[in-house]
């Protein structure tokens, strides 16, 4: 327990210290470094510790008596509400006050009256927790390290913003702590508290630069998340007053009684959808791109948005075949597809990443909503791979922006020659996101199989269409990086060492994960699924069991050893490419100009134009704005998904409350 509490509290402590170190100094960098390194090693230690000394098979439970802590949490909740109130008044955004109050006041009431605790323990550690702790701990800490270098450059480039980097770093750490709390809480009220902390932290981070756009976007993020918080609260109230339970694990016991659980599950799922920026709520995440890159990386890839899907994955045993499950699956699948199409139409690197995040979260959501073991397996795998790869992508885009002043994909032309190291990171990232044998694709593969098995035609279709679109935007990006024109030279990138410290391990991790994922699967994911689903043998799952393809064995069978070896070979071949490149390039051959209709002006960059002058050739990617443009597709998607969510929620509410 002490490790865990340290894991949660330590970041808060660092955050507290950093809050007062306003000036950039060696001391501050050192503290960040210590904090990050500490958190990282702690989480690894925690994982090993849990495996070796605790019973994570059935979950280890802590803290069943917590009156004092509850009071503390109530007080902190009140503080959060006040912060929101203060800023809402300051920027005249009053509606968020209502949302905030709607969520917080019942929580306060229950905390103070002690309703929110039964004898059940508040903290639970099982396989999923360990996985999440590792993800958040490793990726999150690396991001914090990266942030030190980044925020310095950021302020060097953006003199117009006031340097509040201490506050920024402190928020990042607070966030980390909150995430740790969230993933280890079993008690719903506690979870709610951490949930709200992440909402408010992200709100503050998005509004960091205080430009009107940033403020506007931050409030959008806030109200969406608070709306989710209200739904969360509704679920808690229902659990406490109707079902007389307080914990998620207790809720899971009712998995086989979908009529009982449909209301709380639907409400929690709704909250998760807002947090994971699923379709009608995807707007906040896109808007969050105004924030400095580390917060984008942290919010969008590694942590906050993962909180949503984490909750969904927890709930997934209760979603198979229920209305709530259908809602989640459809929204997830739809988001996966629609966001990939939207990602095609944008050229701002961070925006592409944001849409792709929304899209991938959609897939995880769909996997959770589908509720089949294999799907959940794929969902968890996706979550791991996505965190590592996407945070790396965000970091490299940020580093590129700080080196060149632009983060537009179109400006990454010929990066492989100009900034080879960054290009290398990005290439790994993009490969990781899009092609086999890298992780994401393998998980998609398992998901496809699960979707087919579950008989949901719509999910299968969404997945097929969505992954085809995914390839498009990733590869065109990669293509830009590889477009080399003769005579371009290597530029010096001014990426600080700390950023490399963050990026290299992630890059290596991304590669290594591809090789060791069977291990992760066997050690953590499959045991978790077997436990989680043991109590809830729904009709569909039984069917799957009978056909002999579900369960631990089935999941491994989805990707057989043979396939795994083949993929290993592919990975090695890809790794050998740079070597081959060196070798082939050593063979001299006649170099010719690239083809420009015979009117090349002597280098690969320009041709003679209609006025006989040299004109630079410029090659831009496709964005298909006419077909899938944000203006065209987005409103349509939002309306469609909102209508769907509203109707499904209504059905669930009526079904859960009155039947």
């Amino acid at each position, binding site marked *: 327990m002490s490790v865990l509490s340290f894991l949660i509290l330590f970041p808060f402590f660092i955050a507290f210290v950093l809050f007062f170190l306003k000036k950039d100094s060696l001391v501050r960098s050192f503290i960040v470094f210590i904090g990050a390194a500490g958190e990282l090693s702690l989480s690894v230690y925690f994982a090993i510790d849990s495996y070796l000394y605790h019973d994570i098979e059935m979950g280890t439970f802590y803290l069943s008596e917590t009156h004092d802590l509850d009071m503390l949490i109530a007080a902190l909740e009140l503080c959060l509400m006040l912060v929101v109130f203060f800023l809402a008044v300051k920027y005249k955004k009053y509606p968020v006050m209502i949302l905030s109050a709607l969520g917080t006041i019942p929580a306060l009431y229950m905390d103070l009256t002690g309703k929110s605790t039964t004898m059940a323990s508040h903290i639970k550690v099982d396989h999923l927790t360990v996985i999440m702790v590792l993800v958040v701990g490793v990726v999150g800490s690396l991001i914090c390290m990266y942030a030190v270098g980044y925020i310095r450059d950021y302020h060097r480039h953006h003199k117009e913003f006031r340097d509040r980097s201490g506050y920024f770093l402190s928020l990042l750490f607070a966030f980390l702590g909150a995430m740790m709390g969230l993933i280890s809480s079993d008690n719903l009220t506690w979870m709610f508290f951490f949930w709200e902390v992440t909402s408010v932290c992200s709100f503050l981070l998005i509004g960091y630069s205080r430009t009107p756009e940033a403020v506007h976007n931050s409030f959008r993020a806030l109200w969406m998340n608070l709306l989710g918080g209200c739904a969360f609260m509704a679920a808690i109230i229902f659990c406490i007053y109707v079902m007389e339970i307080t914990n998620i694990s207790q809720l899971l016991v009712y998995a086989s009684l979908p009529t009982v659980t449909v209301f709380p599950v639907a409400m929690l799922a709704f909250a998760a959808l807002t947090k994971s920026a699923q379709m009608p709520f995807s707007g906040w995440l896109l808007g969050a791109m105004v924030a400095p890159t580390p917060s984008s990386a942290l919010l969008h890839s590694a942590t906050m948005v993962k909180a949503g899907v984490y909750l969904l994955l927890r709930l997934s045993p209760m979603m198979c075949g229920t209305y709530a499950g259908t809602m989640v699956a459809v929204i997830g699948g739809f988001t996966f597809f629609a966001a990939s199409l939207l990602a095609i139409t944008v050229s701002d690197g961070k925006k592409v990443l944001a849409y792709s995040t929304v899209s991938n979260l959609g897939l995880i959501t769909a996997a959770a909503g589908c509720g089949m073991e294999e799907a959940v397996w794929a969902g968890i795998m996706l979550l791991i791979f996505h965190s590592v790869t996407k945070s790396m992508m965000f970091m490299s885009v940020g580093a590129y922006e700080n080196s060149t002043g632009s983060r537009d994909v179109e400006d990454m032309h010929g990066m492989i020659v100009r900034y080879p190291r960054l290009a290398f990171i990005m290439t790994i990232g993009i490969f990781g996101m899009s092609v086999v044998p890298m992780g994401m694709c393998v998980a998609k593969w398992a998901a496809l199989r699960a979707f087919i098995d579950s008989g949901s035609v719509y999910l299968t279709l969404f997945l097929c269409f969505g992954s085809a679109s995914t390839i498009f935007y990733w590869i065109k990006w990669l293509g830009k990086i590889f477009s080399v024109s003769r005579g371009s030279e290597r530029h010096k990138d001014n990426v600080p060492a700390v950023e490399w410290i963050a990026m290299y391990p992630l890059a290596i991790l991304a590669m290594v994960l591809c090789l060791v994922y069977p291990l992760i699967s066997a050690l953590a994911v499959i045991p978790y699924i077997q436990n989680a689903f043991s109590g809830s043998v729904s009709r569909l799952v039984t069917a799957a069991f009978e056909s002999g393809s579900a369960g631990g064995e089935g999941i491994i069978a989805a990707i057989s050893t043979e396939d795994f070896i083949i993929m290993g070979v592919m990975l090695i071949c890809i790794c050998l490419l740079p070597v081959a490149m060196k070798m082939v390039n050593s063979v001299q051959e*006649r170099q*010719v*100009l690239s*083809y420009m209709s*015979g009117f090349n002006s002597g280098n690969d960059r320009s041709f003679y134009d209609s006025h006989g002058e040299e004109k630079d050739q410029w090659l831009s990617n496709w964005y298909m704005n006419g077909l899938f443009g944000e203006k065209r597709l987005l409103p349509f998607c939002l309306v469609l998904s909102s209508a769907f969510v509203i109707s499904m929620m209504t059905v669930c509410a009526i079904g859960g409350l009155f039947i």
Partner: protein
Amino acid sequence: MRISKSPWLLHYDGSSCNGCDIEVLASTTPRFDVERFGIVNTGNPKHADIFLCTGGINSQNEDVVRQIYDQMPDPKVVLACGICACDGGIFKDCYNILGGTDTVIPVDVYVPGCAVRPEALIDGVIKALKILDEKAEKMKRGEYKSLTSAEYAEKLKGMKTASDKEKEDENA
């Protein structure tokens, strides 16, 4: 395996009157069907083995012709199609005509005609294919490398100065 079994052809219209061009095009159509000899009209210098140039060279297209020629991989042959491409034809007195194709790149086969007949073109191509095979043979033995257009220009300069000298001698 002879390279001449699959000659791919690139056609560029220098400053022809179109007469030769349509005949070149006609030779790819059913009546003459040069695909019988494996000829494909590629249009891309990087894939081509035979460069078929019609029309004379003028000051605006000389660079284009040079560039296309240089972009073609060895072994390659150049066919000058039509009288214009052979020596400037009826236009050779025009202020903007520098001369036939051989003023900028080396020509392997001259195909006369105004306009060149598809049959003559076929004859010319068949002749060119023999040369292509010879070049390929020599290339294999490492004895052959085609001149680049720049080298050719040098060579021409050399030739000219030599003949100029002769003329001067004569005058003297």
